[in-house]
């Protein structure tokens, strides 16, 4: 019981402090700009581009896709910075020097980014309804909320994996940006996957967001929870696979870095 309590405390403190460290340098108004204005501008850009390409009747398709894509802001950037930040700030050696449960430390980095990412998606949907005319009257809202949460978790799973790369490379922003922008294509947020080449569909099926976006679109069209359940479960599995891979990589990098003495070598 004592171990459980210690781990819970460690999880919560790690979650909270890593999140504060990520944004502490910002004033509230700047934080709002990064959480509200940037996603809104990105949504507008791709929704206008999509409606220019296929007609205004398809606006909902792009609004839903790009609203869920916002999960990748916290999922990719937030996660890699939360994990890589320990290396940048010289605290990684202390973390690896403690007897703390690595899984708890690792998951603690994800928790606040999941909450933050989900909130970002909710705000994006709100913009969709208020500014872009998204109609949610036929939508099962609790199911949509679950999709948002699960998709953000699975995206954070990918972020955990990428975050581990931040432990061994200084060009982590390159990796982040690359993955984030590729997700704009491969997640199906902006292109219809059934019209894409087979190799694109293959890659897309192995990524987070893809099934979440498809499920959200179905829900907005009026689908029931049972209809989107397979997509939801698929998204859960994808998230678990990436999360586990990330944790294994995290554990492996600790061993390699200690053996080679390259823990803070850039």
């Amino acid at each position, binding site marked *: 019981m004592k171990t459980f309590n210690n781990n819970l405390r460690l999880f919560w403190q790690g979650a909270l402090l890593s999140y504060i460290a990520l944004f502490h340098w*910002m*004033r509230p108004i*700047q934080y709002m*700009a*990064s959480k509200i*204005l*940037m996603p809104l*501008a*990105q949504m*507008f*850009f791709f929704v*206008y*581009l*999509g*409606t*220019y*390409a*296929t007609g205004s009747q398809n606006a909902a398709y792009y609004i839903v896709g790009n609203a869920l894509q916002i999960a990748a802001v916290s999922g990719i950037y937030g996660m890699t910075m939360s994990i890589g930040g320990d290396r940048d700030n010289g605290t990684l050696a202390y973390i690896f020097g403690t007897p703390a449960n690595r899984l708890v430390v690792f998951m603690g980095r994800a928790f606040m980014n999941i909450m933050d990412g989900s909130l970002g998606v909710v705000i994006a949907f709100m913009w969709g309804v208020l500014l872009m005319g998204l109609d949610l009257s036929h939508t099962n809202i609790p199911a949509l909320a679950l999709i948002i949460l699960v998709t953000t978790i699975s995206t954070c799973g990918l972020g955990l994996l990428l975050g581990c790369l931040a432990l061994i490379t200084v*060009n982590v*922003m*390159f*990796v982040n*940006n*690359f993955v984030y*922008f*590729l997700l*704009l*294509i491969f997640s199906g947020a*902006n*292109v219809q996957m059934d019209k*894409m080449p087979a190799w694109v569909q293959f890659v897309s099926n192995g990524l987070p967001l893809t099934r979440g976006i498809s499920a959200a679109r179905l829900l907005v069209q009026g689908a029931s929870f049972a209809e989107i359940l397979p997509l939801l479960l698929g998204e859960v599995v994808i998230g678990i696979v990436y999360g586990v891979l990330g944790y294994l990589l995290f554990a492996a990098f600790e061993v390699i870095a200690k053996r080679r003495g390259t823990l803070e070598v850039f």
Partner: protein
Amino acid sequence: MNVRVLVKYWRTVLTVAEMTMRQQMTDGFIVFTVLFQPIIIAVLGLWMLGDKGADAAMFVVVGSGLTGLWSSLLFISGGSINSERWSGTLESLVAIPTPFEVVVFGKNLANVLQSLVSMVVGYFIAAFAFGYSLNIQEPLLFFVSVLIAVVAFISFGLIIAPIFVMNPGVRAWQNAMEFPVYVFCGFLFPIALLPGWTTPISYILPPYWAAVALHGTSTGGASLDQTLISWGMMLFFSVIDLFIASRLFKLMLYKARADATLGME
């Protein structure tokens, strides 16, 4: 200012541009911003607008290149002074007889030229990977448009850099300033799609006029008068930007010396 001084400054600009390019080729963030990001946007745009034909493909190639130009201006040129500060070379650059803005002009030139590479790569992707037969409808006018756009972008960048240095708070808005310019300047779709009240915002942004000139001359969609107007607007804004920039650089260096914060952020 005589010709000898101008030639000396031009040599400085070219040397700084060359050094900046060499240095930036190893920076993953910069390579992504000037090259990979516009290419990914080009590929995405080509898939999205694929049904609209070759003209739309040319529109996407030029537009995605413009997104690279703006992003490089915002993130790289915007941080060009601070990067010297972090390297510990800002004091030396400010102390040399050549005006500091000439040095930053050279850095901006490098950024803008690097970004144009993405337009070329986008062209080849559209031609070879997507099979479009792409022709620049008005090659001479397009070439002149590119030259004037380069001047306009560099001049705009000269304003952004000192503003970011003097107002670190504004720099934190960088991420939020990227996509609005893509939208308001009509890089990948006409601004006619936007609500009417946003049109004046587009008109006061030099990248909008660059987009009008480059899209118009590459697709043949603009009359000569429209192209001439967009050139005139780019040159007009360049003059204004250079005037404002010269004042901002003086103010920035005065403040830095008076507050003894030249090397401090």
